[in-house]
């Protein structure tokens, strides 16, 4: 790839994206996307699918800009309810809750929101630059990742998040088992038959991670609040733009976290078969391991918001890369966008770059502009979002419950999911009361079925022999890396002990519990 040529193309793309029509389309898309991202259970996929019919009346370039802007907006918006109410607006904002919600509870929702939006923006922006200059070779590399490589990467994700919990280890193990077990429920695509469904057809859609997260975190939190005697008043929170400025002053401290999270998130996003959610958890886990304040994670550390948000938004950019360069959907949202390509009369695939220069470079140009406009919009709204927590609890609680129900229903369009949400709400309340950590449950649930599927696909490919994990260099590398990362905390303890220092007692930083 000739960088000068690329730069030239990029300028052209920016020009396309900056046309008044396209700019307007981007703003509309961002606002809609943010609103959709705020609603729990509804995500970019819904938003893009909903707007697809409208794109008939637009030119292809404006159409893709509209859909992409909805997508960016949804990524920005996902963090809002996670931080304010401990309800994940999007799957990847679950990790954002771990520190974002404690911050909001301490009366600093503005700080948490600013940190989330700003790091989202930085992650996306850097990822877009990488996208612009390295898209084709990265796509080639991603194709080398088959099931064995995906399995090894997912194992690395598990390794980085292991030890996220510093409470009762037996209970953490129990919750991990529960999460993995729930992940096996549903229609098993490898054997082509339902399993662990107790004969229920509705359960064949599986136990959805977002629904469980809405239940155990969001509803569970409402029940806890109610138990601790009802707060008629809303939270007291400072609302001013000073929060924005003060949060920004902290950012230079997190430069390494941001760099690490961006690269990690972008690459995990490019890989088809993983996605933004594992990226956000991995990034959170790594930040916790590497940060000097790692033991404080889970109690309201700004860095604990920065890491997952950076990675999630970078992964969101990465997921579009295989779509644009190869015509392969990197995520369900990308799959719906690809359906749009046919509506607009375009052939997705490697030739798109050559044949539809305006379209491709217009899209890339709009990524830059949409993210700049997007972050400006959401940052201006920070005081308004933060003000939501001032709404009296007796109005907020039923309102949140109704929104959660709509979101939970929308996931699979079935009523059973509402029961699952209610059940997990009650369970989440009891778990929390009795000291069972919740983070291992959701992490295991979201990674579980992907990991098992990749594992079984790999063994089928290797005709039953696990040698396939070691004979393929990339898989072997990531396997070794995950073993190393898994042993890292123990190694540190050993080193400290050898130096004669006492092992510092772990602070009870119980992430997300």
């Amino acid at each position, binding site marked *: 790839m000739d960088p000068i040529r690329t730069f030239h193309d990029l300028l052209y793309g920016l020009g396309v994206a900056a046309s008044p029509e396209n700019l307007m389309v981007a703003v509309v898309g961002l606002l809609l996307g943010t609103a959709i991202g705020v609603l729990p259970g509804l995500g970019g996929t819904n938003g893009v699918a909903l707007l697809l019919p409208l794109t008939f009346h637009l030119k292809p370039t404006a159409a893709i800009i509209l859909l992409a802007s909805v997508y960016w907006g949804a990524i920005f918006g996902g963090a809002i309810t996670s931080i304010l109410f401990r309800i994940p607006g999007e799957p990847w904002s679950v990790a954002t809750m771990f520190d974002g919600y404690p911050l909001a509870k301490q009366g600093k929702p503005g700080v948490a929101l600013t940190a989330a939006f700003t790091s989202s923006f930085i992650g996306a922006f850097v990822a877009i630059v990488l996208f612009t200059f390295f898209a084709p070779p990265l796509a080639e590399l991603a194709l080398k990742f088959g099931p064995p490589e995906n399995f090894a990467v997912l194992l690395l994700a598990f390794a980085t998040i292991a030890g996220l919990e510093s409470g009762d280890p*037996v209970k953490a193990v129990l919750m991990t088992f529960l999460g993995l077990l729930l992940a096996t429920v549903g229609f098993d695509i490898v054997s082509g038959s339902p399993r662990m469904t107790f004969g229920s057809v509705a359960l064949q859609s599986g136990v959805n991670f977002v629904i469980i997260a809405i239940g155990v975190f969001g509803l569970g939190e409402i029940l806890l609040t109610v138990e601790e005697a009802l707060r008629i008043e809303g939270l007291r929170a400072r609302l001013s733009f000073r929060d924005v400025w003060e949060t920004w002053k902290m950012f230079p401290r997190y430069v390494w976290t941001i760099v690490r999270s961006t690269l990690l998130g972008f690459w995990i996003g490019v890989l088809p078969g993983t996605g933004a959610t594992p990226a956000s958890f991995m990034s959170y886990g790594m930040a916790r391991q590497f940060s000097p304040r790692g033991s404080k994670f889970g109690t309201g550390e700004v860095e604990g918001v920065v890491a997952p948000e950076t990675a999630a938004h970078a992964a969101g950019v990465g997921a579009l890369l295989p779509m644009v360069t190869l015509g392969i959907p990197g995520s369900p949202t990308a799959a719906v966008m690809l359906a749009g390509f046919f509506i607009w009369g375009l052939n997705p695939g490697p030739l798109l770059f050559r044949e539809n220069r305006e379209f491709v470079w217009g899209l890339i140009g709009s990524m830059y502009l949409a993210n700049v406009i997007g972050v400006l919009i959401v940052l201006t709204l920070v005081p308004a979002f933060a003000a939501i927590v001032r709404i009296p609890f007796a109005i907020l609680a039923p309102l949140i419950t109704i929104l959660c129900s709509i979101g939970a229903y929308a996931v699979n369009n079935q*009523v059973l999911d509402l029961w699952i949400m209610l059940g997990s*709400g009650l369970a989440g309340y009891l778990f929390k009361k009795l000291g069972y950590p919740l983070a291992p449950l959701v992490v295991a649930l979201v990674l579980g079925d992907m990991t098992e599927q990749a594992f079984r696909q790999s063994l089928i490919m290797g005709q039953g022999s696990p040698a396939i994990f070691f004979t393929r260099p990339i898989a072997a590398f990531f396997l070794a890396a995950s073993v190393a990362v898994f042993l890292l905390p123990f190694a540190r303890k050993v080193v400290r002990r050898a130096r004669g220092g006492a092992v510092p007692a772990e602070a009870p930083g119980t992430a997300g519990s």
Partner: protein
Amino acid sequence: MRKAALAFAGLLVAAGIVFLGEASRLPTGWTASGPGPGFFPFWLATGFTLAGLAVLVRTWSSHHSPGEAFLPGGAWKRILVVFLPMVGIVAFLHYLGIYLGGLLYLLGYTRGVGRHSWPVVVAVSVGVPLVLFLIFERWFLMPMPKGLVLEWLLYGR
């Protein structure tokens, strides 16, 4: 507190055994091309049950804070007031739908628990479902369960 912890751990063990039962109906072995569909469910359920037993034993043998109550006085009442209506609405979703159910829930909660003034109560409990209806049914075209009552009101029959 201790009794509740023991009961809950016991419940988890029981759930583990139910999972084990369901998992054993599948091929749990290791086939020529890797694990069968029941392999992971079976061993995960085993692990879960054992971990549950371990928690049970540890809770049994721990002796501190026996006097603490599981719930502060009257708390269970407040929790049921929030939770039971949710259950009721999902149970009657077929008739009420999400919008009318939401209306009733908001009405009951803002008035009964929040003791807000009637204008606020009515504005919130009518306004919110109405806005949601417009958003999902009219603009987003995402059909939600509307319930027999609302469908009858909207379309007749």
